[in-house]
C-alpha cells in the first residue's frame, strides 16, 4: 500500500467515482510485501514442514509450528535481503520449534538413545525373518526420530534437505566444525542403532 500511495499521491481526495478511478483496476490492492514474501518464502513450505515434523515428531505440532514460523517470517521479512530464502526460513522454523516445544512440552526429556529401551521394546527378529523394504524403512525412521535434537536436525538438514555445512551452520547457529562433528556422530549413532536392531546377515 505504501508503494501504491507514494506513486499516486497526486491523485486528489476528490477521486471518488468509479469512472475516475479506472486506472486502479488492473492493479490488485495487494501489498507488494505480501507478493514478494509469497514468491521468496512460500515455495519452501515443504522444507519448513519436513524440518518441523522431524523436530516436533508430531504432525499436529508441526502444523502449528509452521504456521507460527510463517507468521514470524512475515514479520521479520524486512530483514530478509534476498539470497537463500530456504535457509533463512529454516532458521526461523527451527527456532520456532524449540521455543514451541519448550512452552508446550515443558521438561520433556530429549530422547536420548537408549539401548535398553530398544531391545526391550522390540525383540530382535530371528535370522529366519527377512527384513522387507518397509520394515527397513521403519527402523530407520525410528532410529532417526530417537536421535537427540542437535543430531536429528543435522541429519535432516544434510541428508533430507541437502544443505551444505555452511548453510546448516547458518540455520542452527553452530560453528561449521560443530556441524561436522555432529553429523559424524549422528551417522555413527544411526548405524549403531540400525545394526542393533536388524538381524545378522546370513
Amino acid at each position: 500500500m505504501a508503494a501504491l500511495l507514494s506513486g499516486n499521491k497526486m491523485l486528489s481526495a476528490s477521486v471518488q467515482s468509479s469512472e475516475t478511478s479506472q486506472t486502479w483496476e488492473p492493479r490488485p490492492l495487494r501489498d507488494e510485501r505480501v507478493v514478494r514474501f509469497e514468491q521468496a518464502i512460500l515455495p519452501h513450505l515443504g522444507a519448513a514442514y519436513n524440518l518441523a515434523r522431524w523436530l516436533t515428531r508430531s504432525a499436529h505440532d508441526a502444523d502449528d509450528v509452521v504456521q507460527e514460523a510463517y507468521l514470524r517470517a512475515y514479520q521479520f521479512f524486512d530483514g530478509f535481503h534476498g539470497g537463500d530464502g530456504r535457509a533463512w526460513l529454516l532458521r526461523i522454523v527451527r527456532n520456532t520449534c524449540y521455543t514451541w516445544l519448550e512452552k508446550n512440552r515443558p521438561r520433556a526429556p530429549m530422547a536420548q538413545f537408549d539401548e535398553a529401551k530398544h531391545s526391550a521394546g522390540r525383540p530382535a527378529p530371528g535370522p529366519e525373518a527377512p527384513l522387507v523394504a518397509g520394515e527397513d524403512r521403519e527402523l530407520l525412521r525410528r532410529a532417526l526420530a530417537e536421535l537427540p535434537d542437535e543430531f536429528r536436525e543435522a541429519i535432516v538438514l544434510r541428508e533430507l534437505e541437502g544443505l551444505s555445512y555452511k548453510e546448516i551452520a547458518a540455520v542452527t547457529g553452530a560453528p561449521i566444525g560443530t556441524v561436522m562433528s555432529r553429523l559424524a556422530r549422528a551417522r555413527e549413532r544411526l548405524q549403531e542403532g540400525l545394526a542393533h536392531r536388524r538381524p545378522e546377515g546370513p
Partner: protein
Amino acid sequence: MTCEEIRNLLSPYADGELDLVRDLDIERHLAECPHCAAALEGLRALSARLSDPALYHQPPTALAPRLRAALGRPRFPWRRVAAAAAAAVLVAAALWGTVRGLSAPSAEDLLAREVVDSHVRSLMADHLLDFKSDDRHKVKPWFLGRVDVAPEVKDLTTERFPLIGGRLDYIDGRPAAALVYKRNDHVINVFVWRAPGPDRPPVFLERQGYHLAHWSDNERAFWVVSDLNEEELRQFVELLRR
C-alpha cells in the same frame, strides 16, 4: 594418516566438504585400506537410505492455502471493490496526511500492523475465542475484571453480523477486549481498549489485504479488522456505532 584419523574425516569427505589436500590424502589411504573403504561404503549406504522420499514429510495440502489466506490474499472479487477501496484509502490517507504530516511510519501504521497481526494470529492458531457466545448479555460481563474497559457489545444478528464470542488480546502494550463477529465466512475482530483522549471519527484503512477501521471516544480506542470488503465493513462500523 592413521585409520583413526581417516575415520574421523570420512563423514565430511563423503559430503564433499573437505579441502582438496585432505581429499587426496584420504583417497590415497582408501585405495590401500579395505577397512576404511568399507566404512565409507557404509556411510554412502546410509545416505542412500536416508534419501528415501518416504522419509520426507510432505505438508498437508490444506496448509499452503491457509498460509496464503492468512497473508492477506483477498477472498472476494476485487475488480469492483478495488476502485472504491483505493479511493477511500486515498481519501483517508490524504485527510490523515494533512493532519499528521507525511512522516512514516506513523503510530497509526504501527498500530494497524499490530491489529492485522493479531487478527491473523487469531485465525491461524486456533485461538479465535476465549469465550463462545452469541448472547451479548453474557459476552459483556465476561470481560469484567479481565480488561480495564467496558466494551460495547451489540446484537447485530438481524443485520447478518452475528456475534460469536470474545477473547482477551494484547494490543499496543496493554490488554484489549476482542469481540468477534461474523459475516458469512468472514471473521471480524473488534478490539477495544482503554485510551483516554479526544473523540475521533472512524478512519478506514487497508493493510496487507485486510480492511481496517478505527475511531475513539473519550475513554476507549476501537479498531475493527476483517477481510470483508470495504462497503460491508463501513456498514458494520456504522451499525456498531449507532
